[in-house]
């Protein structure tokens, strides 16, 4: 499954912004202990958010940019620390929260209940400052490990779905995205457009200028294409110099205009390379599936129609747009 993401050129290597690991949530109804915790945490340069009951803590922890470390008092109004812990673990996605539960010295049986509810560690009142510091460090270490794990996981997921040369969606990913949009079209009757795009005479660039120049041309063309389409269109590298662009919610006229913009943005200016400027053009075959259609097309039919239109654009002289089913050429040579 591919996660929704901006479909222009994606930033290889930095798929996620850094997480705030220096933020701590303190949920404690007692002013004395709240002050103790705030005092030390601030002294140790943590950013502290503090609340006085479990419900406020729960609301904060559900936010996407919530602190990843939470120090929760066991006994609190509205929702106690243990219940909060349970809720948190039940709803926790990829973002892990380190939970330090604070309990009283003579409620030892609480510790088992607390850890079973999902607390990572506990602290008994009255705690001293060194113990607090040590527990916080433990939490920080675990959060950093967790963070590294998530980064690697996300990098792998990114690589699995993207073309390393251009940063566009790769063939598998763009076909999966197309399939998803086709299903949406079949279910809701929403308009769907598809462009099959080919760089004209690309083989000649590779043959005469070398593959390094060919790569520069591919990368620059991909950049321009991604910048030319709307934010919610999907751009993928289909094969060598072939690209697929999935254009949801767009009628035939708008699709044609978009394809024409695409053609124009490659045709001029030429691509700057180490071997000098290289003039490139695009041939584009487009197909528009509009409601009401007697039978909604499936993925294969759409691909086949776009391919045929591309073939027609090539046959009619390249650097042009052809629409499947309608004999209409746009652009000049």
């Amino acid at each position, binding site marked *: 499954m591919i996660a929704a993401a901006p479909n222009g050129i994606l930033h290889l290597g930095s798929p996620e912004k850094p997480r705030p690991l220096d933020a701590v949530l303190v949920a404690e*109804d*007692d*002013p*004395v*202990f709240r*002050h*103790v915790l705030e*005092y030390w945490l601030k002294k140790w340069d943590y950013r502290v958010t503090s609340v006085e009951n479990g419900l406020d803590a729960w609301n904060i922890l559900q936010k996407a940019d919530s602190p990843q470390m939470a120090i929760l008092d066991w*006994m609190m109004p509205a929702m106690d620390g243990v219940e909060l812990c349970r809720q948190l673990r039940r709803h926790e996605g990829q973002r892990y929260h380190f939970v330090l539960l604070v309990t*009283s*010295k*003579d409620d030892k049986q609480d510790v088992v209940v607390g850890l079973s509810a999902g607390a990572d560690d506990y602290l008994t*009142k*009255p*705690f*001293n*400052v*060194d113990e607090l510091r040590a527990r916080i460090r433990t939490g920080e270490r675990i959060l950093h490990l967790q963070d590294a794990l998530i980064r690697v996981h996300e990098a792998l997921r990114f690589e699995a779905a993207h073309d390393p040369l251009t940063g566009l969606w790769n063939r598998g990913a763009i076909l999966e995205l197309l399939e998803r949009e086709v299903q949406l079209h079949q279910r809701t009757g929403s308009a769907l457009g598809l462009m099959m795009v080919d760089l004209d005479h690309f083989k000649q660039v590779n043959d005469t200028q070398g593959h390094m120049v060919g790569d520069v041309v591919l990368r620059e063309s991909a950049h321009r294409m991604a910048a030319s389409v709307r934010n919610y269109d999907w751009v993928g590298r289909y094969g060598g110099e072939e690209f697929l662009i999935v254009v949801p919610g767009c009628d035939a006229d708008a699709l044609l205009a978009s394809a024409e913009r695409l053609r124009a943005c490659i045709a001029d200016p030429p691509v700057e390379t180490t071997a000098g400027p290289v003039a490139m053009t695009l041939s584009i075959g487009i197909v528009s599936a509009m409601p009401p259609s007697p039978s909604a097309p499936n993925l294969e039919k759409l691909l086949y129609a776009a391919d045929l239109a591309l073939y027609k654009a090539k046959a009619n002289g390249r650097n042009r747009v052809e629409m499947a089913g309608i004999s209409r050429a746009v652009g000049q040579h």
Partner: protein
Amino acid sequence: MADRPTEWKGLENAPLRARLTGADPIPVPKAEPSPRALRAPSWSRAEVLDRLGGDEELLQELCQIFLKESPRLMEKLRQGMASGDAEAVQRAAHSLKGEVSYLAAKGASQAARRLEDMGRERDLSAVSEAIRLMERELDGLRRAIEDDADRTRR
């Protein structure tokens, strides 16, 4: 000579005022040592300071918060008793217990623990006596803390 009647007048009225406000009319003789001096110290300042890594500033701040907060918790205890709300007694006693244990106040901790147990067991039959004891312990502790704050200020 002219001053004498005024002096006598004040003394005559003293027991009456005491009766009206419900306070103990019997004056404590000055010669006897105060009960406070005979008892164990209300808190261990050294233990608290150690807990706080020797941070005097934090100690003073916590004491000030405690002086402000503890009457509120006592009020909650009394309200819990008045309305027969054992859970409210348990909660307030729990908070008090946490604070006074943090201040290494043994007597007060024990008194708070007793109240918390009563609340947890939903048995408020002896709660008014336990609250009186708690008040006495807290008074001693508050005086000790205030004295300490005065000393530190000097």
